């Protein structure tokens, strides 16, 4: 499986954020998007997730399940944790598992155990702290198997334990021939990771 983008251009609000960006990631590889604020790291991730249309250029996924679009094979972990505070932790995760899932993956119960939230499964998600909410979002990636992970500042609200857990989960995903695109400021503890530097605003 190989995900590649070529000559991608992003225009937001009439302003060009980046242009002529190309990258390629293969199975078992991680690509870190680096760059200053406003360089378009999040925009690139949203583009790959199908949530933002490229102004130019193309994205290609080779050697994958042809029935599914790129977006349907990707997990997107954004700045927001898509949780409903009045539903319980377990209900939130079970919903996303059923909504996103094609039946493969660890399942919600095992995923809660992996992120260390199994003891609060039936409490309202509104009781969780920011770090716990992020853990619950990470549980989603474990519960449903999708080969491409798009992570936008995944470590931002996590404590040391949480970051270790995230690194562990990501390494396991790579070992299972998954691929990761992550926008980050902090090192994520992925050793063989390639980097893509997005520059400052183009003229």
């Amino acid at each position, binding site marked *: 499986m190989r995900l590649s983008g070529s000559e991608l251009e992003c225009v*937001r609000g009439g302003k060009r954020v980046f242009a002529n960006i190309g990258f390629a990631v293969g199975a078992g590889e991680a690509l870190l998007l680096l760059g200053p604020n406003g360089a378009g790291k999040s925009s690139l991730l949203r583009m790959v*997730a*199908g*949530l*933002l*249309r490229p102004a130019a250029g193309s994205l290609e996924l080779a050697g994958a399940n042809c029935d*599914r679009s790129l*977006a*349907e094979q*990707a997990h*997107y972990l*954004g*700045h*927001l*944790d*898509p*949780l*409903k*505070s*009045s*539903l319980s932790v377990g*209900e939130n995760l*079970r*919903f*996303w598992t*059923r*909504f*996103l*899932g*094609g039946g493969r993956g660890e399942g919600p119960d095992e995923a809660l155990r992996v992120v260390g939230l199994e003891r609060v499964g039936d409490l309202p998600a509104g009781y969780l702290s920011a770090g716990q909410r992020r853990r619950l979002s990470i549980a989603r990636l474990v519960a449903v198997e999708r080969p491409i992970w798009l992570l936008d500042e995944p470590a931002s609200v996590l404590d040391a334990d949480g970051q270790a857990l995230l690194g562990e989960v990501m390494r396991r995903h790579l070992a299972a021939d998954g691929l990761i695109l992550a926008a980050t400021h902090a090192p994520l503890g992925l050793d063989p990771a390639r980097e893509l530097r997005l520059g400052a605003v183009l003229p």
Partner: protein
Amino acid sequence: MTALAALLLRDMRLAVRVGGGALMGVLFFLLVVTMVPFGVGPDLKLLARIGPAILWIGALLATLLGLDRLLAADHDDGSLDLILMGHAPLELAVAAKALAHWLTTGLPLVIAAPLFGIFLNIDGSAIGIVALTLLVGTPALTFIGLIGAALAVALERGGLLLPVLVLPLTVPVLIFGIAAGDAAILNAAPFGAPFLILIALTLTSVVIGPVAAAAVLRHGLD
């Protein structure tokens, strides 16, 4: 199919939990029904005559006022991104959300309408017919409102904008819904024709609403 069922169930759960709006629509409906007599006076004959219209306008407002958060809430917490990335077609996903909204807001209105008809002195058989027209017609209001709900997402702040955008689109539903009710109550005009047109309007909007809403959401991708 499981994805859509999951979405439907989640939205219905949210509606009945803390902060959900399941019975708020009925309460608002009751308030509209109560406020009208203060405006027009407690003349029971007059109220009986305009009763079906009051019930319809109450149902219309109660349906539309809660709709602006239908998609905006999912947009604000990032759920909408994931819904866009699901295997289920977006059209069906928003239709499932609209159906959940109708089941938790529209259907209670239909069930409450006969009770509230008592306040307006509408008699037994007439109230059944008004409730029937509401049962057939309120899904049209929800699914037309769905388009407004999608616009409210793209425009950041919805609020009163949604009714402003959507109310003109609901005019035909209102006309034929009340016409069918009046026809049956006053025996002045045939009931069948307006009732069938009402059904047609509902079926049409059940198709157009989700397609248009999905188009709005896709176009507003950002």
